[in-house]
């Protein structure tokens, strides 16, 4: 995992430096004088050789220093950590709703194999997976927020309200009022994967011999489906969940934009639009780190959940 982390960080570094369009020119434009330009270059360390810059980059990052934002002149890491809880809460909330629904739905669809429920259910689920998340968000906003005025139109709080800490947020019902729409819309998009995965696993597991044996033993349908089939079918879904966390972080960009949710994704979009490249680089790096970490966790998790695999690795 560390190797991949290092490799990706290096790629990000070079991407931001070697891409066409010097980062500073984009930011500074033509309004600064030659002097001010040189000052800024020095300040952001852009006059040093590429190798030196890389070395600085690695050492700084390892110490948690991701540089200073061009636009805000504040430490990038501080800005990231400020919005991180919002992203985490949104992601976890949505994923949990999506997975609970998906697992139950998937098991149900597997149970209803070769009936009209399946024939109608599967296209509907595929359609949710095919719809752009932000489009679903737009419809939800137009209908439930603007037209029916049930939910707020975005943000984490009503204008003027401030949360003093993450705990404050979590305890305030206003926060949840703002959280519902974005997380539900995201959940609608996300549930497709666990649902189809669970269904496919269940169908496969139900063919296994030990399921036949359970029927011959005279065990109840409930015991067979839940205790044996579902337990076996869940393994890949658990792995998918961890992978889903890492993936959702990067994908949340659009939902955060539609609902003006102040999270990492929205910050990246802003940073890129404003050519604030330390902020963009830092945010991108952070998102990548989360993704890589969750990929790693997924692998470890599988080792623990499957007795067959853990047996092999222990011996």
């Amino acid at each position: 995992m560390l190797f991949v982390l290092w490799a990706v960080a290096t790629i990000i570094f070079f991407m931001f430096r070697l891409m066409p369009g010097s980062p500073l020119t984009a930011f500074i434009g033509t309004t600064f004088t030659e002097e001010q330009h040189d000052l800024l270059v020095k300040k952001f360390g852009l006059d040093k050789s590429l190798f030196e810059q890389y070395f600085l980059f690695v050492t700084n990052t390892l110490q948690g220093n991701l540089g200073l934002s061009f636009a805000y002149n504040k430490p990038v890491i501080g800005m990231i950590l400020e919005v991180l809880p919002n992203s985490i809460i949104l992601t976890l909330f949505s994923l949990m709703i999506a997975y609970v629904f998906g697992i139950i739905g998937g098991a149900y669809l597997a149970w209803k194999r070769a009936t009209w429920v399946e024939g109608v259910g599967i296209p509907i689920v595929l359609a949710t997976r095919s719809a752009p998340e932000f489009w679903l968000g737009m419809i939800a906003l137009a209908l439930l927020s603007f037209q029916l005025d049930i939910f707020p139109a975005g943000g984490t709080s009503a204008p003027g309200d401030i949360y003093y800490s993450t705990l404050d947020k979590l305890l305030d019902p206003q926060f949840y009022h703002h959280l519902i729409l974005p997380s539900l819309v995201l959940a609608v998009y996300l549930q497709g994967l666990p649902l189809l995965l669970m269904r496919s696993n269940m169908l496969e597991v139900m063919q296994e011999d030990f399921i036949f044996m359970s029927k011959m033993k005279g065990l109840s349908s409930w015991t067979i489906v839940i205790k044996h089939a579902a337990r076996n079918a869940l393994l890949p879904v658990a792995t998918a969940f961890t992978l889903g966390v890492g993936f959702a972080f990067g994908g949340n960009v659009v939902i955060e934009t539609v609902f003006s949710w102040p999270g990492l994704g929205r910050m990246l979009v802003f940073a890129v639009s404003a050519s604030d490249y330390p902020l963009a680089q830092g945010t991108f790096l952070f998102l990548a780190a989360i993704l890589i970490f969750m990929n790693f966790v997924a692998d470890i998790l599988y080792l623990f959940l499957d007795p067959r695999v853990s047996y092999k690795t222990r011996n």
Partner: protein
Amino acid sequence: MIKNLFNVLKKDPYALTGVLIYLFFIIIAIFADLIAPNDPLRILFNSSGLARNIDPGREFLLGTTSNGRDIFSQLVHGSRNALYVGLTAALAVAILGTIVGLISGYFGGWVDNLIMRLADIALGIPFLPFVIVLAAFLGPSSWNVVIAISILLWPNSGRVIRSQVLSLRERAYIESAKVSGCSNLRIIFVHIGPNILPLSFLYGSIAIGWAILTEASISFLGFGPSDVISWGYMLQDAYSSQALSLGAYFWFIPPGVCIVLMVVAGFFISRGYEEILFPRIKN
């Protein structure tokens, strides 16, 4: 093999629907100029001045945008961009994934290890953020989506194809081909290749949908090309023109529906072929 494809279409209503949807959009895209009454980018005027925010009616089937452009014409032309991006990305994914899978699986050893490491790295880069950054540096263009998909999404198809190649490699007829002096290249392309093609096709058809969705997201975020009409662009236009609060459903619902149809079609087709690839899952 071709006969197999047609048989699947006949038996599976989903795959058939998918193919029909694709054909529908392909026809629309080809004849877009004939079908659309107006130039999608042209600002239109009527008797009362700028033809903005007009509700759907006889003159403008889906009404007009806040800038006075014909929504229906935009919708029709949007199919071109969708197909263009979708099919290029699908080709890229299919070709790259197949080549990588074939080489990695067949030769094994350090080549395989290297490729798998590269795959890990590619999977460690968040997809949408990458496209955003790409768009920021290379300038807004439909190519960004294709490039990003090519660079980051080959591991999925590559890995599956690789494991298929691994199992095929051990088969007896490959051994005998080697013994009788077939060159590696010949074995790869003549013996293993045809068995892999269904997988390439499958991942390709999923990639079309993925590309269209990504393109839509990028356009929505404002990083897409503004001189080309795409469904994503229409959605972004609608959003920033306050179509939501105006309740202009006719503006932003149709482009979304078109996207859903095209992506779903890809899923339907790939599901249909899943039946020939993994027949044991039936019943």
